[in-house]
């Protein structure tokens, strides 16, 4: 699982510049008066899978949604601190959020294909961003996205059928295809397998492992086994704090913090 050499980016800032994709510095999130996230700082490597684990309500999803500014849609949410993707602060007022979300794709907990055809689901992103100039271009993008998402063989003969008619696992892969169709650099996944059966989960996990060769993937998961299976680095969140972050194998075998140990051994959460 950990064939890819990953550097401990926190302890080696020189290498971090080449390997790190997303840098969070002192990120706080408030929902009204309630603080949901306290001073989170973390470096997230490129071309690898980073898993966020932790009990419910610990802030891992909140943090994930900061990375493509999805929290903007909640009127009472307020984010302070810096999140830097490729040397650019994404909370800089001059940055266009639409452009950001084209670079940072997202896959949600529940498969949420548009109630349109399979083709339209994948073609929607490239179309609104003006990425394709001809029908042939668009066809190519749709095909390659579906291929990358491992769905092409199953749906190539029924691209006109509604995306909502697919099985849960296929729907989630369609959502992944939709996300990668706009050619993002970072893919955020918010518990992408929680609504799927074990077989569909296994397929998504294989796919994640395949996709990490080209993308920076950040996945929130409730399942520690899943984090151990798919990720190279893991961050453990608890009560709005980032408790511990490191190479996945180390987090699961020799955690430095007691809270991490308690959680992964099942003492709470």
């Amino acid at each position, binding site marked *: 699982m950990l064939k890819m050499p990953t550097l401990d980016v926190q302890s080696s800032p020189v290498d971090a510049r080449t390997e790190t994709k997303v840098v969070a510095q002192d990120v706080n999130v408030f929902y009204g008066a309630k603080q949901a996230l306290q001073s989170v700082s973390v470096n997230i490597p490129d071309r690898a899978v980073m898993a966020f684990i932790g009990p419910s309500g610990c802030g891992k999803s909140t943090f994930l949604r900061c990375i493509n500014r999805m929290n903007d849609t909640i009127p009472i949410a307020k984010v302070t601190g810096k999140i830097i993707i490729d040397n650019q602060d994404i909370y800089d007022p001059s940055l266009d959020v639409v452009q950001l979300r084209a670079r940072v794709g997202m896959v949600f907990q529940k498969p*949420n294909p548009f*109630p349109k055809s399979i083709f339209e689901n994948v073609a929607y992103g490239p179309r609104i961003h003006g990425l394709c100039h001809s029908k042939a271009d668009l066809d190519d993008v749709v095909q390659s996205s579906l291929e990358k998402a491992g769905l092409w063989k199953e749906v190539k003969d029924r691209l006109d059928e509604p995306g909502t008619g697919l099985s849960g696992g296929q729907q989630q892969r369609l959502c992944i295809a939709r996300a990668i169709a706009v050619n993002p650099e970072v893919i955020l996944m918010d518990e992408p397998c929680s609504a799927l059966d074990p077989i569909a989960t296994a397929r998504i996990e294989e796919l994640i492992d395949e996709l990490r060769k080209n993308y920076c993937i950040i996945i929130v998961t409730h399942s520690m086994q899943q984090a151990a299976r798919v990720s190279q680095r893991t961050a453990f969140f608890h009560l709005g704090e980032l408790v511990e972050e490191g190479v996945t194998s180390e987090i699961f075998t020799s955690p430095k913090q007691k809270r991490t140990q308690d959680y992964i051994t099942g003492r709470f959460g």
Partner: protein
Amino acid sequence: MAVETVPGPFSGPMAGPSGPGAAASAAIKRSIKKRYAAERRFRAYGVAAILFGLVFLAVLFGSIVSTGYTAFVQSSLELNVFLDRSVIDPDGKREPTALMTADYTLLAKKALASAVGADPANKMQMREVGALLSRDVDVEIRKAVLADPSVIGKTVPIWVLASGRVDNLMKGTLDRNLPAQTRKISDQQLAWIDKLSASGALAKRFNTGLFTNGASSNPETAGIGVAMVGSLFMMITVLLLAVPLGVAAAVYLQEFAPKNFWTDLIEVNINNLAAVPSIVFGLLGLAIFINFAGLPRSASIVGGLVLTLMTLPTIIIATRAAIGAVPPSIREAALGVGASKMQTIAHHVVPLAMPGILTGTIIGLAKALGETAPLLMIGMVAFVVEYPTSPLAPSTALPVQIYMWATSAERGFVERTAGATIILLAVLICMNLVAVILRRKYERRW
């Protein structure tokens, strides 16, 4: 471990391999009995309430249909009219004014007199013959002559309307066994009617005039044509104004407006407007559109504007509910691939809310179509014979026409009141049916 089962409607082979329920205490047994009795009682109340409603509905429809079905047929006479050149066009110039104003009633009377064998020289008899014909009998003959002036000088068979009394007698609403004085039809006339009826020259035919004619003081030629055109103009006005305005307002309020005191106030007032009595909208229309803006009275555009104001709250509320019902996951999906807020709304939220918006719109339109009170205030209670050529021309509306006929005592108007009500109800049921079908067809489950 043995599971105790409670004897009741759910015990039996499905209850599992537990004991036969002997262990269940008497207290539980009693309380269960009570619970099921309460449930049965509740169901009985529900069924009774529904039956009560159905009975009223049946009585309502029964009385309307039984009074109104006769309005769809009208007694007509087939006359072999001799289109006498000396009466129609004595100059032989075929002048349109001459053809328009010729005494066609006289021709009809002569034709009927020869059909029943009355003496054209006998004035008394001729008056009785004339009373069998509708006062608007000239219309049909003039139409035939104007359509083809070459028929002048020939004898042609033409179906003309019989008078209202003949119609009543034919439909059985006038008792032929009454004494001649109170019957208002003489024995002589009765004999002629029987003769014509037996020969097939007097028959009940489908009443196209009901759908095409305008207002008339003779029930046999009164129709809802003008009222339907007026109602159509009003519905078009409402559709063109209320739908875009209502949907735009709802989308703004639901998706863009900040949540503050002012938007709360607006929301409360929209809900209040939906509950304002419709006559108040009529007063508003009278004050603003007619007295202030100077639009003509009785014009369907004013009616349309008033009904637009009345329908707006309905459409806004329905649209907001439909937009609110679009699951957040779809918005997130669109935002997640980088759609802007406007794109998310235009490409996903509004299309998905469309069935709900359409349903609300159709129900709003149906409500507006049946509305009478505000139209009374803006002068749509009018005797309009000519078809309105534009929304600015005087016209009337379907429910207002019903209201006007309902105030007339003649038997012909009574059946027309019910007949027009049947038509109005049929249109409303069709509209609601379309709403239901749309909802069923496009309803989605996420």
